[in-house]
């Protein structure tokens, strides 16, 4: 009896997911993005493509680490010769740097907009275009209606959208996930000198029908690598102690 109840709930959940715009990938195809332990945070156990993801950041340091994490995701989405669009009002991305995240910089088309209205219009139009692999938009504000429009656009086209929000004020959006990526001190392997590989604290603040969490992720050899065990971060304080000492 109990088992059947759980069964029914599981089936209902499965039926609800597509209605919310989260489609499981058909057949035996795996999700193009493998995030290791972070995969378990998502419904169906894989990163949600064909949805809009939202990233919060404060300050240029955060913008750089968020950009790095997103470009890492883009690299997997674009690996079949795909193209992506990057929309922003004040562009600071340095194209040659994209190469270290596995993207050929000339596959990205940058669009400069003057204001948020233009950004949102361009983003919606771009998300409707299913010839693209992904669309990245930098905007401060994203209202609920606007984010709902973006979500409806991707449900048709199955393009993955990323919204980078610098110093956001409005928190209620229709995006599937909300992330916050901050820089962490790099973990040095074998006492090597220098700065080391990019290392981020990846916080999944909100995920529809999934389990939010926090992880420490490194970017090594053009792929994500888990610097520490999945789960709440313990590594930072010890790291900082080392520095102050």
């Amino acid at each position: 009896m109990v088992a059947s109840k759980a069964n029914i709930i599981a089936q209902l959940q499965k039926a609800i997911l597509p209605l919310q715009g989260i489609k499981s990938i058909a057949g035996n195809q795996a999700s193009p993005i493998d995030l290791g332990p972070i995969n378990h945070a998502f419904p169906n156990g894989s990163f949600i493509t064909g949805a809009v993801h939202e990233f919060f950041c404060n300050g240029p340091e955060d913008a750089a680490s968020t950009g790095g994490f997103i470009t890492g995701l883009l690299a997997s989405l674009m690996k079949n010769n795909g193209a992506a669009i990057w929309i922003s009002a004040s562009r600071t991305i340095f194209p040659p740097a994209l190469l270290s995240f596995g993207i050929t910089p000339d596959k990205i088309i940058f669009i400069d907009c003057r204001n948020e209205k233009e950004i949102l219009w361009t983003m919606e139009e771009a998300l409707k275009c299913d010839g693209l692999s992904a669309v990245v938009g930098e905007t401060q504000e994203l209202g609920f209606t606007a984010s709902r429009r973006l979500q409806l656009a991707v449900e048709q086209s199955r393009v993955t959208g990323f919204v980078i929000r610098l110093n956001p004020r409005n928190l209620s959006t229709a995006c599937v996930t909300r992330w916050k990526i901050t820089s962490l001190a790099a973990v040095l392997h074998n006492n090597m000198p220098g700065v080391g590989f990019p290392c981020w604290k990846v916080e999944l603040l909100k995920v529809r029908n999934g389990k939010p969490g926090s992880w420490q992720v490194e970017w090594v050899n053009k792929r994500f690598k888990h610097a520490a065990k999945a789960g709440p971060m313990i590594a930072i304080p010890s790291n900082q102690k080392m520095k102050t000492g």
Partner: protein
Amino acid sequence: MSKRYISIWFRQLKTDWFIIRQPLLFNTAFVLSEASHGRMIITAASPAAQSEGIHTGLLVADARAISSSLQVFDDITDLPDKLLSRLAEWCIRFTPSVSIDLPDGLILDVTGCPHLWGGDGLYLEAIIKRLKERGYQVSAGMADTIGTSWAIARYAKESFTVESGKHTEALLPLPVASLRIETEIVDRLNKLGLRQTGQIIGMPRNVLKRRFGQSFIKRLYQAMGLEEETIYPVQPPEPYQERLPCLEPIVTATGIEIALQKLIETLCHRLQQEAKGLRVAKFKCYRVDGKMEMIETGTNRATHHAAHLFKLLEEKIATIEPGLGIELFVLDGLKIEDVVPFQEKLWKLDSGLADIQLSELLDRIESKMGAGRIHRYLPDEHYWPERSFKPASSLDETTTSNWKVENRRPLQLLAKPALIEVTAPVPDYPPMLFRYKGILHKIIKADGPERIEQEWWIQEGQHRDYYCVEDEKGCRYWLFRSGHYTSEKLYQWFIHGFFA
């Protein structure tokens, strides 16, 4: 297909224009005059003045003696040129190829146009009627050759059209002056008793050439259609052009949309058959009052997709002011390129930048937000960070140089390096701390230096020693010192970017 030409003669071009500008002058005797060798000579006389016996070439003083109420105006030197080019532009509504025939005429290449107005006669009548409505007294002739039409316009009793192939017969009764030859030769012919063209046409070529020269033979043969004659249109017709004349002037947006759609469809159909595509299109609307409204659009990749082109131009229809109505729509394909046929793939693979939907999306963005908003970058052979990439001009452009991978580059680069305060040990150690925007960053780890020299052939200046540093919070920065450490303190520290 034989050519058809119309020659229009403005009998009173200059005085008509004065009457149009000052309607009070209608039916009054007035002349235009010009100073020549200290005397005022009449250069044009109004019909009323002519009926009193005043003609071109007469002195103003003499003319005043003939008619006491005569008004005299100063002639404007390049007036005929200006007027005729304006009229030629206006005549583009009848045919795309119109040329000026100084001093007082226009020549229209109307090959293939008359049937749109219901035949040769109706076409010519329409042109004459419209010009008369504008206030010009004209006579015109239509024939297979420029020479014949010119002769008919000026020397026939009334304007008429010559049937195709009958132009030589039409020339026979006309005076020899109708052959566009110098007055000297006309006088000589008249002296010999040759007054009508019919009398010369049968004569052997070498006889005529010996007596009257090569230019005479040329004019004669051009009129008979034995020798080619070309005209120079005021607006060279575009090879890819579609026209849509309207029976009634169009004033509504819906009307313009329908016209635009029709033109795009015909043009795209033609382009498709020739495997060509459009890069720049211009949609022109000729208004009843002689003004022209125009919208323009460009595409990122040559296309003959009618629906897409329509969408691009449709957004700009609102900027067209129809005024009293538009009577002619013209769609010009200004830049035409070959279309690479896009092969549909059986299995879905990302086509990347070659995707048609993508280029259509970019066209839409560009037409909405204006040019210069879309950028794509290619590697450039420079180590200097700001010059290490260059904008690509099109989606297909590639380059032989590769992106450089050997050195770490920051994901976020400041447009202009910002000055920072730094504590750094000499000679070449990375800084220990730096202050940027008032916040103190303590440096824990560092990589570097990586020296990048100025490219002296482009810009003079100091080299940069770059360091990649990590502060106590784990944020990574790209700092550089510009110049060597010197006692004069000429060096400065800057922050240039943020690493991911």
